[in-house]
């Protein structure tokens, strides 16, 4: 666009590396997080080979991983455990949260509220670089003696307390990531409270901003207890305290020489006090993204937007009191189980309200089926399956059967993979024109979407079946050594092949992303999707300070097809 007022007085490293501009930081977050998502996915592909073909050497690339990890191309159990722990850690803390909050939140929130930047730009820069260091620590831990952390992403003691040195690196990495999230959360809340432009009252805030606001509160208040737990586990490992080590522990036939008196349940309480709100940190920004995209592509107002706003706040509050539903199989007692069972059922209500409002919104709309909309539409039933399969896990008696089986894996991956990650893809396709001035290619987009959609279901639905049959998770040989797994063992191959095909489909996305940056079709206006929200009032791509003049807001964000209006959208920024 002609009106891109770039400030050319900053040197390269200040403008693109140690930048304080929220858009550059957003892109830094986005690119880093996409790389981590790819890494985490590749780790899973390695594991899927081992699960489907246990003990068989990995063809072609098997020798790349060294004799310590895969001698002769055959994966060692220790390496499998490292990959399992790090797949979870990387996907959650280094991939999805930084992409959903760090990238989309940073780039879009100030634009949608009409702000010149985030509230504390230097803090914003620090938040990214602390995250980056945390990621480097996590990856570097693979080269430590004994490799990376291998006690699962949940790091349950006493196993994690006595694990190899990779666990210490994991804890240090987590302290960096937590610090980064805290800095980001303070910044987001301040930005949304303080920097809304003239006329942007709370009732005119787009749903995406609401979702990011609630998410920021979750990060702010739920992460510190994990930091406390991490410090205590570090103390256990480095200074031989016994926070999580009960008395009388025997390791490899030898009594452990520690003071004892600690509690393994304490770690689980502190960990899940973070990690359950963390689930909502993963899903709320995704809901925000697809609400924006659905509103834009149905060309009519979102049905029940106020109910959705209150629901997202209710989810935020309730998510702090459901954590122990991860712990029904511990000895915490039936009274406590009953309480958490009740709150868990309660939190499903606002989630269902949001999903229902979005489904009803589709009714009677003249829907545009572009790539972002396809991903957004796929999100609805996929998240629906993910949410509904969670209910049996939230009830303490069926959980006795389902706990720690592939059913759990199928459930939460339905929420996060074809749920959140689809929403993130949708967001990339949707906001790409604002970030670059070019649209992504539709054909490549469809080639990316359809195989991904089919494969996601071929991967995760069979896991629900395997889990109901009683197949345990975290099995190095894919469960082959257990008699009761035999009838569902053939599904391992189905899942793995589907995963490899899905990996191939992602190539279309990577090509599309890189190719469209240079050669995608140029957009002819600042508002190519004919959307209502404020980010489309900014120049394309927005320069430093975002808007050519401070925007003013005159109406709510979803006033599409207003009767009597000249066109089918009435932007917030037009009088």
């Amino acid at each position: 666009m002609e009106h891109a007022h770039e400030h050319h007085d900053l040197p390269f490293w200040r403008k693109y590396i140690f930048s304080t501009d929220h858009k550059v930081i957003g892109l830094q977050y986005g690119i880093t997080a996409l790389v981590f998502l790819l890494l985490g996915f590749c780790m899973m592909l390695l594991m899927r080979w081992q699960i489907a073909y246990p003990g068989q050497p990995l063809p072609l690339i098997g020798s790349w991983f060294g004799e310590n990890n895969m001698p002769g191309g055959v994966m060692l159990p220790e390496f499998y455990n490292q990959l399992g722990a790090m797949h979870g850690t990387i996907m959650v803390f280094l991939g999805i949260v930084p992409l959903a909050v760090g990238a989309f939140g940073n780039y879009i929130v100030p634009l949608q509220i009409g702000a010149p930047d985030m509230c504390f730009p230097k803090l914003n820069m620090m938040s990214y670089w602390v995250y980056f260091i945390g990621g480097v620590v996590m990856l570097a831990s693979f080269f430590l003696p004994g490799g990376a952390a291998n006690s699962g992403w949940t790091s349950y003691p006493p196993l994690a307390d006595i694990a190899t040195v990779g666990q210490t690196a994991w804890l240090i990495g987590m302290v960096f990531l937590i610090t980064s999230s805290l800095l980001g959360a303070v910044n987001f809340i301040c930005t949304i409270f303080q920097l809304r432009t003239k006329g942007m009252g709370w009732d005119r805030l787009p749903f995406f901003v609401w979702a990011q606001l609630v998410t920021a509160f979750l990060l702010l208040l739920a992460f510190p207890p994990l930091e406390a737990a991490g410090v205590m586990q570090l103390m256990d490992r480095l200074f031989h305290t016994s926070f999580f080590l009960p008395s009388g522990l025997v390791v490899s036939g030898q009594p452990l020489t520690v003071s004892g008196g600690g509690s393994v349940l304490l770690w689980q309480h502190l960990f899940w006090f973070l990690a359950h709100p963390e689930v909502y940190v993963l899903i709320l920004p995704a809901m925000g993204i697809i609400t924006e995209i659905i509103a834009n592509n149905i060309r009519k107002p979102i049905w029940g937007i106020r109910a959705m706003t209150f629901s997202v706040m209710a989810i935020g509050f309730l998510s702090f009191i459901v954590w122990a539903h991860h712990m029904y199989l511990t000895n915490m007692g039936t009274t406590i189980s009953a309480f958490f069972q009740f709150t868990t059922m309660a939190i499903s209500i606002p989630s269902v309200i949001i999903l229902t409002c979005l489904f009803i919104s589709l009714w009677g709309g003249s829907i545009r089926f572009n790539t972002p909309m396809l991903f957004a539409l796929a999100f609805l039933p996929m998240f629906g399956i993910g949410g509904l399969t969670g209910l049996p896990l939230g009830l303490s008696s069926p959980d006795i059967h389902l706990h720690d089986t592939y059913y759990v894996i199928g459930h939460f991956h339905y929420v996060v993979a074809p749920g959140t990650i689809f929403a993130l893809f949708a967001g990339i396709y949707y906001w790409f024109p604002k970030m670059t001035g070019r649209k992504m290619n539709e054909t490549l987009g469809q080639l990316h979407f359809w195989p991904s959609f089919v494969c996601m279901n071929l991967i995760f639905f069979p896991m629900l079946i395997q889990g109901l049959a009683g197949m345990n998770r975290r099995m190095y040989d894919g469960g082959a050594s257990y008699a009761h797994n035999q009838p569902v063992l053939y599904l391992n191959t189905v899942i793995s092949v589907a995963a490899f095909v899905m990996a191939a489909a992602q190539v279309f996305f990577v090509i599309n992303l890189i190719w469209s940056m240079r050669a995608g079709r140029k957009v002819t206006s600042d508002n190519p999707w004919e959307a209502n929200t404020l980010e489309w009032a900014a120049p394309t791509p927005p320069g430093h300070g975002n808007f050519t003049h401070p925007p003013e807001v005159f109406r709510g964000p979803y006033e599409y097809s207003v009767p009597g209006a000249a066109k089918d959208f009435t932007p917030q920024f037009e009088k």
Partner: protein
Amino acid sequence: MSSEIPYIVEERPDTGLNNATLGIWLFLSSEVMLFGALFSSYMLMRVGAAHWPSGASLLSIPIATLNTVILISSSIAVVFAWASLKEGNFAKFRACWALSILGGLAFLALKAVEYNKDFAEGLFPSSSTFMAIYFVLTGLHGLHIIGGLIVNSYLLGPGAKMHKEDPARYAHRIEIAGIYWHFVDLLWIILLFPVLYLL
């Protein structure tokens, strides 16, 4: 193109806050969760323990009491410093602010003496879960004191230049740093001292 961030010093009319005031309170709310989690861990371990030592039998109450007095004085000095700055008495502000920093340093010095005494008596983090939570809580609190001292010393030294260029913004920074300092002092006075030493 306007790229100035508003409400750095003046208050936003509808929230009644400026940016950093909201920011520091949000940050402190996360600190409450951090120390709240550690305090919850303390309770959980204590109710689950067969024997729980009284703090008085292991730790030095006189040193801790002296430290409590020092931190209270340091907090009072911060209040006087801020009031003097608002009155335009920069010399008095400097004196009071420096005094509060000295208080923080004295606290750390006494804490080091106390740690040494603990080590000399064979009390280490690995000795018992009580000593473990004692060292974690006081150690993390000490790190918070060090962080506060670094910021406060910067505001006394190179950061004080802002007083000439933008006195309103400088006074605001002093206020924000003061809120944090009160928080770490209160943490010792109402949580760590009573819980670890007296209960």
